[in-house]
């Protein structure tokens, strides 16, 4: 792919777009860090499993969703429309994956909810 006049100053010599793309990919600004929430959830799940929670992966996934939101329990329950009592039971690992409300799953879609025998509700 050839792009012409792409540089400042109106240089007209053709520039290979692939070359530009390569340079852009190498530029430090291209490497924006983003949290690996799936990994974080798995790590948290390992810790909760050691505590003997009935549903540690579910609790970890819900806690990760809330942690990524930055919110405390009350505001998160309000934002997601989930009953605070249900949220507390989910986070303490008392409820099975099927009990996780769609609103919570949507909040952290990067988490592999499918591995918890749930399909991510994208509706």
């Amino acid at each position, binding site marked *: 792919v050839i792009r012409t006049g792409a540089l400042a100053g109106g240089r007209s010599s053709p520039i290979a777009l692939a070359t530009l793309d390569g340079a852009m990919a190498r530029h430090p600004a291209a490497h924006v860090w983003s949290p690996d929430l799936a990994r974080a959830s798995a790590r*948290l799940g390992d810790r909760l499993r050691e505590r003997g929670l009935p549903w540690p992966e579910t609790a970890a996934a819900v*806690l990760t969703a809330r*942690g990524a939101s930055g919110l405390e329990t009350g505001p998160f329950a309000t934002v997601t429309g989930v009953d605070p009592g249900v949220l507390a039971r989910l986070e303490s690992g008392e409820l099975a994956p099927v009990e996780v409300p769609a609103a919570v799953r949507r909040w952290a879609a990067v988490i592999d909810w499918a591995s918890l025998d749930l399909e991510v509700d994208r509706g």
Partner: protein
Amino acid sequence: LDDGDTKHNGGRARLEELMARLADGDQAAVIALYVEFATPISAALRSHLRALGCDGIGRADLDGLVLDACFALADCARAWRPDGGALPWVWAARRLRVLASAHVGQYGETFDPDRHEPDGASPPAPAGDDADSQVEVLDRLASAHPLCRLLREALAQVGSARDGEIFLELQVQRLAGDRSPAVTVGRQFGLSSAAVRQVRRRTRARLRSLADIDDRFAPLAALDLVA
């Protein structure tokens, strides 16, 4: 960190809030700490890694370490005091150092001759005073191996005992994988590396000459040490 920073800039007030939540046992705050403060925590970890000689770390590995650090900070959150002044990852530096050390323990860097120049590398520590000298080792080997006996005799003819010792020690260090044997041996004998190399050149040339002119020492010419 300033109190006026936004959440995603990692403000001090926000950090104190998260640490308080961690102290109260809010597990979600661990994730929030990871999401919002990964940058300064990773910087602290990089510093520990550099101090341990690990200059490069993959992004995925560093990310895993940051997560470990967040959990470590959660575990000690109750002991952290916001009025103490130190940021949690500075206050818990020893915990982070343990994590970095555990990572370095599994870390191996491929040898790169361009980066590990002999003069830039740290040579192994020289042997202690109670170690046998290489001439003494050669003396013991001489009783069982004719070639060692011949080398011992030849070294005695071509130079001083000290030169012979330097010559042998240099070879031992080189075979042991020391990338800067002249530096190591120089420290051992109080000489510059250039002087050590000069001793090696002079001794080897004399040994080669001796092997050429005296048939009795001719077998020495086959030794890498002399060739």
